[in-house]
């Protein structure tokens, strides 16, 4: 067997699986979104009808879809900056020469990342409990009134953000920490000689050199936060008053509770388009900032 043939043979099994169970479904999802694929069509494909852009038209006139879009955007707008700030703060502290027990602390800060989301969402649902939850107990000690975390439509999404930040910040912390450790020590030394303080060095050396990594991490995090599903499914079932229905929650409900699969596929594609749009926008923004 020559080398080229071997290359094909070695990559073929993986390529076939990816083609069949990833690429084909992506194309099929687009096609399905132009049909009324439902429970009847699932039983007998003869019941399938082409409906053109009807699913998309219906989406745009459905208030709950707009609400799901708004809720998801709120989760992204609130969650991504908080998440990045927590990651950056933790990475800067871990990178400090003054810090002791670094490996131990790094492991502790990272631990939530590897936990099972369903399990920790249940733990947090309980921490958020209006009567027996420890969070309100903590607030009471600080002299602040109780909050009905998951029961109040204004607080439910911020509560989910809190869980998401706790669960996720460790991931970006590791990436940022690696980028921090790659900054040459001489640069800091030179700045110190010129009389720059801690904040001056942070502003003029650390943050500019960290910017490319921060931008990259930001893009990946935004697209990840758009895919909100498990937290509302486990903690609030989309409530109260549908304040935590996310785009994917809506897709799941339409697709797998009501079996309107064609319609759900159009929801999935709108999400895909949004993620693409935001990735492209962020890339352009990053490039422009990089040039100036």
């Amino acid at each position, binding site marked *: *067997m020559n*080398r080229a*043939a*071997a290359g*094909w043979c*070695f*990559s073929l*099994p*993986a*390529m076939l*699986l*990816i083609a069949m*169970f*990833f*690429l084909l*479904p*992506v194309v*099929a*999802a687009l096609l399905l979104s132009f049909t009324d*694929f439902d429970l009847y069509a*699932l039983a007998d494909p003869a019941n399938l009808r082409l409906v053109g852009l009807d699913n998309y038209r219906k989406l745009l006139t459905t208030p709950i879809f707009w609400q799901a879009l708004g809720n998801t955007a709120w989760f992204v707008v609130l969650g991504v900056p908080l998440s990045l700030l927590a990651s950056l*703060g*933790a990475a800067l*502290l871990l990178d*400090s020469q*003054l810090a*002791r027990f670094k490996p131990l*602390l790094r492991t502790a800060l990272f*631990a*939530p990342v*590897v*936990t*099972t*989301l*369903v*399990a*920790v969402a*249940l*733990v947090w649902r*309980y921490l958020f409990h209006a009567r*027996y939850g*420890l969070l309100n*107990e903590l607030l009471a000690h600080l002299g602040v009134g109780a909050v009905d975390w998951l029961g109040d439509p204004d607080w439910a999404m911020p509560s989910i953000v809190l869980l998401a930040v706790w669960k996720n910040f460790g991931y970006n912390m*590791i*990436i940022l920490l*690696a980028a921090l450790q790659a900054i040459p020590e001489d640069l800091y030394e030179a700045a110190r000689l010129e009389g720059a303080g*801690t904040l001056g060095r942070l502003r003029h050396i650390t943050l500019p050199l960290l910017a490319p*990594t921060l931008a*990259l991490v930001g893009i990946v995090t935004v*697209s990840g936060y758009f*895919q909100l*599903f*498990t937290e509302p*499914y486990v903690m609030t079932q989309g409530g109260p008053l549908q304040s935590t229905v996310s785009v994917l929650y809506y*897709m799941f409900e339409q*697709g*797998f509770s009501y079996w309107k*699969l064609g319609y759900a*596929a159009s929801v*999935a594609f709108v999400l895909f388009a949004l993620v693409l749009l935001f990735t492209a926008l962020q890339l352009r923004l990053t490039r422009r900032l990089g040039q100036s």
Partner: protein
Amino acid sequence: MNRRASFWLVNGALWLGAAATLFPLLWMASVSLMPGGASSSYPPPLLPAAITLDHYRELFAVQHMGRYFLNSLIVASSATLLALVLNGMAGYAFAKLHFRGREALYRLLLAGLLVPVQVTMIPLFGLLKVLGLVNTYAGAIVPAVASIFGIFLVRQFALSIPDELLDAARVDGASEWRVFSSVVVPVLRPILVTLAVFVFLATWNDFMWPLIVLSDRDMLTLPVALASLASEHVQDNELMMAGAVVTVLPVLLLFLALQRFYLRGIMAGSLKG
């Protein structure tokens, strides 16, 4: 600010942060050991007044937790094994074996990274229904075995293998398969461990796909079973926390044992942009 004050500020903030991240996990374990109903009192207790293993006993004796645990173990380990073989071979081929269409194929794969995986779920469900794979282990692992990320991870590592090493084996008369199995695999070992930890954790923790494809009670994985347990026993906090411990503990221990390999994967993955 003097050095002493900075020292306490930095270390104090770090320990406070670590306490905040660990607290929910420790508290989960603590509540799981409390007698039934003890956690629903005011003020909420931090530690169990008396330790009991009743909830763990109930989980395994009454709630079929053993079965779910086994399902999760089968799904996560078989996905891991298959992912190692498939992505290991493909990643090596993309790095070291020149074949027609390689570059174009690789660019197509990288573009695929932009697609949120949930887009595929609806047609995939239909496809698996046609293939008779709904409610099977195979159906649960199908999206996880061959992955673009996995191929990418192995490829980046395999690029650093010197061609002379491979050519030397070929001159000795080794077949391409033999070159792979006895020269390449030993070199790739660290990145294969990284890939294994990634796939195992991802499939063990996954929720949305198994929720869609597994509906038979006997087939559920731990996260799906836990979510349904939580909606049936809303008031039973101690039981739920015990279920959460059983679900989280295996992956937490696996991570602690292989931490170095897992963190390396994150760093490699962050370069994909």
